[in-house]
């Protein structure tokens, strides 16, 4: 199959998947039990029958389902998801877009950092298999991989935001920036950085284990291949064998994982966002599910799906460049 044709077929597949997701999203959230209007009002002083009916009307949920679907399709095609139910009067698109930057800042950068660190640890660990470094790294990566992010986050929060014993509190306990501090330029950037530090650290530590373990195992597999022995027999230096021959071949599975992880960065990091009250898309999703906020849910899941589909598309295309056998068939 020619490269152009291969790419075209993958793009078409991605578009079809996206269209399916768009339709599926509408019905998916309406299957969740509970009436959104009653759910919004329950536990408040406004919870009564008249208000439930009025809210149902104001949200347009008293219209027939086919009509709601048509409105949804029309709105979604113009990327206008309607007003949030829970955050009344707030445009869902606006609410989502305000959370994209903090989410990318936290999840994208921590994913990349954890991937780099994990790869480096995995490479050295695999290359020096059985060494003290390997044993230590294995223990560490297995521990951080299996460790609940929530638990680690709480510990980090208590240690570095609360301070322990004589060690003072270093970072803020939560949020994206200090409200009311009137900071601009570099000072604002520093303030954002300070708020980012702890959740970022938790995510980097929590994610690096996965990359490290996969890279190490993949590297060990490749190290036993015949071409490595051939290279040694030809007298190629060990470092060259590692970096020029083993790592590029062992990188493919990790590369897939990194790209797929990047596809999920818009989904945020729910538990870490929760612990550090970080205003990311993950927390917004939880809020939207809790209140059956259809406009927010539809917007969020379309964004998540699109990100994963695009990441897959990029992975497919790049894979075909890295490994021509994929394109062939």
């Amino acid at each position, binding site marked *: 199959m020619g490269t152009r044709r291969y790419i075209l077929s993958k793009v078409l597949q991605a578009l079809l998947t996206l269209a399916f997701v768009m339709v599926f999203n509408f019905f998916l959230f309406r299957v969740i039990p*509970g*009436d959104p*209007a*009653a*759910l*919004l*009002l329950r*536990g*408040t*002083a*406004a*919870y*009564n*029958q*008249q*208000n439930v009916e*009025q*809210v149902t009307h104001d949200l347009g949920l008293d219209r027939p389902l086919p009509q709601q679907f048509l409105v949804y399709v029309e709105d979604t095609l113009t990327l206008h998801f309607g*007003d949030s139910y*829970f*955050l*009344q*009067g*707030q445009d869902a698109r606006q*609410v989502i877009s*305000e959370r994209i930057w903090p989410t990318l800042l936290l999840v994208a950068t921590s994913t990349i950092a954890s991937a780099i660190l994990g790869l480096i640890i995995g490479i050295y660990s695999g290359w020096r298999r059985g060494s003290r470094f390997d044993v230590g790294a294995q223990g560490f990566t297995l521990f951080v991989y299996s460790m609940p992010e929530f638990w680690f986050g*709480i510990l980090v*929060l*208590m240690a570095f*935001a*609360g*301070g322990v014993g004589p060690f003072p*509190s270093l*970072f*803020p*306990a*939560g*949020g994206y920036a*200090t*409200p*009311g*501090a*009137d900071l601009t330029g*570099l*000072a604002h950037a*520093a*303030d954002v*950085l*300070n708020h980012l*530090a702890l959740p970022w650290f938790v995510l980097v530590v929590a994610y690096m284990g996965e990359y490290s373990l996969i890279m190490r195992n993949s590297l060990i597999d490749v190290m036993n291949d015949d071409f490595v022995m051939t290279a040694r027999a030809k007298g190629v*230096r060990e470092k060259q064998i590692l970096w020029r021959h083993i790592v590029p071949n062992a990188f493919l599975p990790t590369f897939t994982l990194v790209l797929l992880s990047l596809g999920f960065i818009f989904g945020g990091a729910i538990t870490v*966002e*929760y*612990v550090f*009250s970080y205003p990311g898309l993950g*927390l*917004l999703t939880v*809020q939207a599910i*809790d209140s*059956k906020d259809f406009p927010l849910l539809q917007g969020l899941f379309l964004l998540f799906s699109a990100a994963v589909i695009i990441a897959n598309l990029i992975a497919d295309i790049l894979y075909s460049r890295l490994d021509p056998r994929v394109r062939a068939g």
Partner: protein
Amino acid sequence: MRRGTRFQLAVALMLAGAFASAAMAQVALAQETTGATGSTADDNQKVVFTWAETSEPDTLNPMAAYSAISFYFWTASYHMPVDFDVDFGAQQPSPEFDGFDSGLVTDIAYTDDAMHFTYTIRDDLVWSDGEPLTAQDVAYTFNLYKNNHAYLPQNYLTLLDGDARVVDGNKVEFDTTEPTSLYKGAAPYMYFYILPQHVFEPIEHGNCPDDSDPCNPKGYGNVPSVSSGPFFIAEYKVGEFVRLERNEFWKGPEPAIDEIVYRIYKNDDAIATALQTGEIDFAHITTPNIFNTLKTAENIDTMVGSIPSFSEIGMNTGSAYQDKEGAFVPHGDGHPALTDVVVRRAIRMAIDSQALNEQVMLGYGVPGDSIIPPVSVAGARWEPTGADKLGPDIEGAKQLLEDAGYVDSDGDGVREMPADSVDPGRPLDFRYFVRTSEQTSIDAAPFVSEWLQEIGIKTEVTALNSAKLTDVINAGEYELFSWGWYPDPDPSAQLALFKCDQRPPDGKTYGNNDAYYCNPEYDQLYEDQLGATDQDARWEIVHQAQKIFYEDSPYAVMWYDPIFSAWRSDRFTGYIPQPQPNGDPLEGWGGISEVWLSLHPVAGSGAGAAEAKGISPAVWAILAGVLILIVAIVLIRRRRTVDEDA
């Protein structure tokens, strides 16, 4: 230089550059906040009061909001017609603030038939954009709420006959469809806020000051707000904070704080940490255990207060067995035993509210009985005493069931329905639903189940999320459930929930009356209290309604909820608990709350300015230096190795 070394050098330089940038940014941050963080209250720096909870406002527009948290922003910015005082009575001018009166209405006149009311409106208030607040604003707001079905306010305007009108320039008059004491002003019944006509009238015509789309009175975001109180809502960042600034046209007592910042945290651990490190000055906590840790913390004061909120065990009093009436058609599959008031009373008697409060609420709540909580408008609550009290009495409950023919004939520990009942011999085996989102409801279940087991009633406990439980209740497919209510200080709205016509009607549609309680005598009492023209007579009727409800026991109220408050004792002082002496220190109910005028920094405390926190530039610089050092060592070692190889 080899390619690999060049790459490593580039990475090292990038990292060092990043750290250097971070250090520079921190220097900039330190410079910009030096004045703020180092200031004292005497330095004429901006004084900011920062407080926190886990709640997110649904909207800051009184037309559409229903979440309790939104009221804290309105108590600093909008007037009510008749304001609550700290004990939920009608506000009187306060001697502490030079006779400051937070209400809007200076005089109330009504006809003998109590169907025509005239409110005189004060003329000394100015909106935060400089426009005067007049009777026009008051009449307009009444009609705006009533004619646009404002979710919370319209509840208080259902008796109005036609629109409110302005007469004599400074008076608002309106008629009611029936005689009533609700609008006489003896108690602050109309729990809503007066809005600026000059802002909301254009919005009604689609002209919003912001980019609200669709632009209508409910959809309008109301930020920044035009307010009549000492502060206006200046900024709202969803999921992050709400910020209020001073209203420069405010003519009342001058507040000692310049800004109020409400920060939204997602969990109590973070709130407790922020409070201990001084990031925030005040917090409401929801978790008793975390609250306990703050009780012994340095420079932190705590208070457990009461609020008008309760948790109950609801019983299906007969969704499947009651007669068809109006929109209501029998539905569901609830156990027929619960149609018998004897069984419900026995359950009420078996549940030990005192023990639940001690075990589940760690003693911080108040044992429950009536559906009108202790924190209500003065005089509204009825409380069972002496012979009226139903338990806790396991033996009494057993005897009650035994006498009514509910006996355990097969010796399996579970009683069966009497021979002359609709379903003879059916065991008293009940489904009992708790809420996954409410830990205390889950924690109470083992105690309740054990007590019911002791009196011969078997229960199967299932935890559901709120959405699913709402469906189960609407379908009438349950025997027992656990949930709660947050009533108004005035009892009328709470009593209305349990009228016959409030039952979920058809198995799918929502209804307030989740216990399917239907007693025509209760309904009549509700109507009578609405129409009572004398306040004392009204309370008498309200008491009767509560007593009947308690004796019929569709609910077993477990406890009245506490409110946990904690604040930095070294930062601000001047909190005003509502109700006195142990309530919400931020005086969360009413129009203009005096707490926003009385809060002031502790002398020499350095309280106030929003403090941007982080590690010092020196630490960032050290980190950059260490990184460069490590890279340099690695490069030197590598070069040596290469030289040796060569």
